[in-house]
């Protein structure tokens, strides 16, 4: 199988610790208020004080069950939602407090890849329009320029350029996710957030995309924040792993530490869900 322990990761990000952190999150809190069917007001605390740091060129995986708050974290970091309180420092600037105009300038540098490849691409548009949307927003292209740009972007993620005129519904799940990645990369972001980006794909396709991501990271020097419920995937891709539960980070450490010396019960439960690793663990405390 393709999941091997983090020994592979050692070469990649050796020098990164000396540079300043790319992303620093301090005490992030997000609270949702809503009315249910009978009109009663309910409050949901999705993030309850989350803090961590990510260095350039590395991958941080945020692992947790559904409802642990990890998708909310991804949305807040991508500036698609505003946190109730807390700070997010990107390249030293607090991006929570800036005005929308300045934030729009910053947006190209943090991009988000969504879980469902079908819904993140507008089914009424063609591949060409979808792919180049981030660039067309900024300047005008001629038809020829569009084709060339699209070709190079698609090549980078391993899709043949002759599908540009088709609607995304004619692509497979793996191709769509590659397309989404290609589109995100068009803006040359410094930070790529992947919100369960592989969860909706078949096993073998997951492996292909995971490898693609690793290649891109080493060739482009990208930083990844990888949100997932799959601990195995996290171990394969990440340098550091943060385990989330109930809106907080309950354990944070290198992939090796998490794998071999899990401290928190949630981490151990996640490991137990990974059949091969479960055998090595002590039985759950009753």
């Amino acid at each position: 199988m393709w999941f091997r322990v983090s020994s592979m990761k050692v070469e990649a990000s050796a020098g990164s610790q000396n540079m300043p952190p790319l992303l620093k999150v301090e005490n992030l809190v997000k609270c949702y208020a809503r009315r249910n069917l009978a009109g009663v007001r309910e409050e949901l605390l999705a993030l309850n004080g989350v803090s961590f740091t990510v260095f350039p060129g590395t991958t941080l995986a945020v692992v947790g069950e559904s409802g642990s708050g990890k998708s909310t974290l991804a949305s807040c970091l991508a500036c698609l939602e505003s946190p109730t309180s807390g700070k997010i420092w990107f390249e030293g600037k607090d991006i929570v407090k800036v005005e929308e105009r300045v934030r729009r300038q910053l947006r190209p540098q943090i991009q988000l890849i969504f879980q469902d490849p079908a819904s993140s691409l507008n089914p009424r548009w063609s591949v060409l329009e979808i792919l180049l949307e981030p660039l067309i927003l900024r300047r005008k292209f001629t038809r020829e320029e569009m084709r060339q740009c699209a070709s190079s972007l698609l090549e980078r993620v391993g899709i043949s350029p002759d599908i540009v005129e088709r609607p995304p519904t004619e692509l497979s799940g793996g191709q769509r996710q590659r397309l989404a990645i290609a589109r995100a990369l068009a803006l040359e972001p410094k930070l790529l957030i992947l919100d369960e980006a592989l969860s909706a794909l078949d096993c073998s396709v997951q492996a292909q995309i995971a490898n693609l991501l690793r290649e891109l990271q080493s060739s482009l020097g990208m930083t990844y924040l990888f949100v997932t419920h799959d601990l195995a995937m996290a171990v394969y891709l990440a340098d550091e792993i943060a385990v989330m539960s109930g809106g907080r980070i309950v354990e944070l450490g290198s992939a090796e530490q998490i794998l071999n010396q899990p401290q928190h019960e949630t981490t151990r439960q996640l490991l137990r869900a990974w059949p091969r690793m479960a055998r090595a663990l002590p039985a759950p405390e009753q």
Partner: protein
Amino acid sequence: MRYLLRRLSHALFLLAGVSILAFLFAALAPGTYFDEMRLNPQIAPETVAALRAQYGFDKPLPVRYASWLSSVIHGEMGFSFAYNSPVAPLLLVRARNTLLLTITATLLAWGIALPLGVWSADRLGRLPDRLLSWATAGLLVIPDLALALGLLVLAVRSGWFPTGGMASVDFETLSPFNKLRDMALHMILPVTALVLSSLPLLVRHVRAALADVLKAPFLLAAVGHGIPKRALLYHYALPAAANPLISLFGFSIGVLLSGSLLIEVVMSWPGLGPLLLEAVLARDLYVVVGGILGSTLFLVGGNLLADLLLYWADPRIRTESGAR
């Protein structure tokens, strides 16, 4: 309980808002009943001015609204200039006549639509269902006006039914039994027109609601348990389709006062419809506002009734609002 109170206050808010809107529409209209009077050379201008002052037409709008609202709460709905009588009793009599028609028609229509819709949904896609769909589509596209006029012609040609109005000329002299029979005869045509115009949509909605439910897995499980067809349809499927049907029913209640306007006018039935039409043509302010308020009362009341029935019928709403 909280849910019910919320719905009630919501309904009251709607009524208040509607009363303001209705009053504004009417009061801001160019021209009043008194313009006609002013043109009449037989009435002295001083009389017109005195009448205007008496009814407070010279005061500013909010004052007029406030005084109108306070009198409405006391049961007084203003004065009708055209009929020279207080509005409330006028409206009540006409509303009673209208309700006589519409309640009968609504009961009949639901009585036919429910079994028909269930029967049709049971045979979904097969020939009887398709024929019924065609029939309802055909009825649906015939305008009320055409139906009413057509039925009138039928009445005249056949001589079986009276051609309009609510009572024969010699109504007062008839025995109680014959009075009832006379009224029923007069009612047949308008009720038929009302039923025919509302039936197709009702049948379609019932059929659609049932069809949705019949696809559900729990129905299949019931079939697997060997439950007989009639019980299946009426004791399992129909209650599950209750939500949209209750909303539909609330709507039927809502249009009890306002849905028969055209048919009443065409068939000379002395209901709220012809009254409103005349009032509108004569610019009789208080009658129009009273009529709009009355029918809105029914609309809002119908919705509220549907909400209450839904609360009672659907346990999900109860637990959501009660669970703490």
